[in-house]
């Protein structure tokens, strides 16, 4: 029994002296919180910007005015190449385990976002719930923007995306969600961010066709997209009847999209169900007699959402972008039907696809007032 003990001890020692191949303490890594890709003047190369927190100032001991993060930029041909450039310049190893945001600038996105995906898709440390965001304008300026409330721009963006999800005015699809859509047919809707002088605005979406940005969606269109993605988790809508402005707050919403093949004619059935409250009635001439009945308000809200969703669908059809994945749904449901439109579905069939949209918005409560 002594021999095995000595062997085990020997192996332990060997392991330890020659070992610890992957050991790298947390303070020896450069935690990359955000990545931004921009175009450079020489068109052949691109610029990658990393947001790395400065550990010295994180705990706020050195005063609140100091910079809490640094932005490092480099140019190169591929993301991996640029990452190597960083490692040559940085005194610590890059660590992508806490990356929250990958920003792609508008100019780059118009040429295609495909080349940026694989670097992140292949990395085992990457959190698949990070957000792939298209920046309107320069991507680096988004990370540069100063936010007094949360000094780390990437964390700020990530939190904003989560909080804003309740307003349904942002696209809340994360990296893996987008990847599922993009790798199916190259079309998707990604979140959009704008940096102005004073603040960051998150809202609306970027419409991707064949991995290329072709149009922006405003915030109402984004809400319609969220409905179609079945990702609505709150939000408010206002309808005006006569002079009264009613604000409807969504509690729950559920969307069902079902392809229907009848007599060789394909149509998409979209059914949106929602429950909500009236949280405000805004009027200068308010008296209880003039309040409209719930039925009337319901009708108006349904009409509003119907218009919004149909507007988005028409836009998608006009641009020939199947960003919601209608084709995938039909392929799953009617595989034999889809075989005839192998490659040219989005040009040939999608623009004329029939949609039957049903909305069922119900007001449950009206606050403590009637």
């Amino acid at each position, binding site marked *: 029994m002594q021999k095995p003990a000595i062997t085990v001890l020997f192996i332990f020692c060997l392991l330890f002296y020659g070992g610890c191949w992957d050991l790298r303490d947390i303070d020896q890594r450069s935690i990359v919180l955000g990545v931004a890709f921009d175009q450079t003047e020489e068109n052949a190369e691109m610029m990658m910007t990393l947001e790395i927190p400065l550990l010295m100032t994180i705990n706020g001991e050195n005063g609140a005015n100091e910079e809490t993060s640094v932005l490092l930029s480099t140019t190169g041909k591929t993301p991996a190449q640029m990452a190597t450039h960083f490692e040559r310049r940085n005194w610590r190893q890059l660590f992508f385990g806490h990356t929250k945001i990958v920003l792609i600038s508008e100019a780059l996105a118009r040429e295609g976002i495909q080349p940026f995906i694989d670097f992140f898709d292949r990395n085992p440390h*990457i959190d698949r719930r990070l957000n792939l965001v298209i920046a309107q304008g320069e991507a680096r300026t988004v990370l540069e923007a100063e936010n007094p409330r949360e000094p780390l721009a990437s964390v700020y963006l990530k939190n904003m995306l989560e909080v804003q999800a309740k307003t349904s005015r942002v696209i809340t699809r994360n990296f*893996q969600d987008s990847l599922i859509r993009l790798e199916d047919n190259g079309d998707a809707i990604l979140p959009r961010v704008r940096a102005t002088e004073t603040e960051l605005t998150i809202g609306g979406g970027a419409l991707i066709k064949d991995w290329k940005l072709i149009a922006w969606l405003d915030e109402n269109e984004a809400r319609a997209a969220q409905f179609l993605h079945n990702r609505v988790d709150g939000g408010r809508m206002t309808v005006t009847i006569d002079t009264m402005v009613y604000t409807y707050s969504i509690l729950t919403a559920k969307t069902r999209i079902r392809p229907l093949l009848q007599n060789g004619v394909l149509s998409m059935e979209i059914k949106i169900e929602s429950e909500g409250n009236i949280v405000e009635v805004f009027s200068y001439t308010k008296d209880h007699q003039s309040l409209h009945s719930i039925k009337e308000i319901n009708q108006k809200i349904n009409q509003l959402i119907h218009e919004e969703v149909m507007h988005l669908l028409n836009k998608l059809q006009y641009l020939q972008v199947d960003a919601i994945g209608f084709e995938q749904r039909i392929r799953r449901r009617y595989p034999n039907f889809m075989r005839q439109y192998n490659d040219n579905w989005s040009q040939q069939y999608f623009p004329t696809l029939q949609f039957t949209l049903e909305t069922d918005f119900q007001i449950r409560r009206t606050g403590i007032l009637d």
Partner: protein
Amino acid sequence: MNQSKSILCQEVPVLILNIILGAGLLNLPSLLARTAGPDGLLALIATVGVNLIGVLLICLLVLRFPDQSIANYSPKLLGRFCGFLFNLTFAGYLLFAAAIVLREFSDTTNVLMLLRTPLEVIMLTMLLAASLLARNGLPPIARASQIIVLLLFFPLLITPLIWAIFDWGALLPVFQVGREAFLEAMTTSVFTLAGFELLLIISPYVLDKRRIIPASILSVLLAGTVAIVIVLVTFGTLTVDQVAKMNDSVFEVVKYMPVPVLILERVDLIFFSIWIAAAYSTVVILLYMVSQQLAETFTISSGKNFVWPLCVVIFFVARIPANQQDSKSFIQIVNYLWIALVYGAIPFLLVLSIIRNRSTAAKRTILGKSKRRKKTRN
């Protein structure tokens, strides 16, 4: 004391579950998605059904020789030389299976967890850890397996989180692939659910042999269910296309899953640890099986002393494939060996034993014993 070597019948499913739910399970969704697309799930269900027949065959053979392991009765059925050869082949298969499990495990660990650590170190530490338990015989292995099985069911606790990203539509369309692709999916996935041949070796040590059939069918069903659930979840969350692209899609599901941040932001490495436990128990049981099979082939009372030499052999065999694609073809060979064993050799032995009718005496005694037991109970 015979008691110290034997295990309860309730421990048989535990052992079988542990050996089936091993390293290969991670790869299973990707394998199925690549070969049969969404039909992979159906192929898997069919495979589980076929394996039920396989385990039934093994049980029937085992019950014909209740107090012997396969190494003891195969020479009686096949003749001395052929039996010896068969035993060696069986041991060789087990050895290769152990090597494959080890290799697959180490490769995945290298990819997901320890990127710079040499493959050899991972393989050696695993082998060393496994050999320490495998040397101690069946009852400790059964006990450790019992705890590990409990761990394996721990991931069920987080299934509710998956509902947020689960999409039944992603499982469609079905019945789209041809017969050949379906069969290919079945033959490649069948090895992932292999392991119940364990019964051939441990049967003499099982105390209550009459319950061996329900116990082993239950275990194959349970393992099959776990595999089906895993494939269902990966297909339903990541879609078949994504699964086919990835190597170890199960962890990607965990990384993708919305987890409320409590203590840990990412739970995928916790899953990874549990999976290490699963791979560990598989290696332990396989090591025990090879050593026991060799010991009984050469009529040595205990396989204990075979374990460490075997570890060295397994280490070098596991090092053979140059890369992940190489090891896939390596797996294919062992896969066909397994199919030949369970669906070729076992029925053949069973038929031989019935024809030669050598086991009637043994059968009579076991029936007599059971009747007697019933009487005493009354």
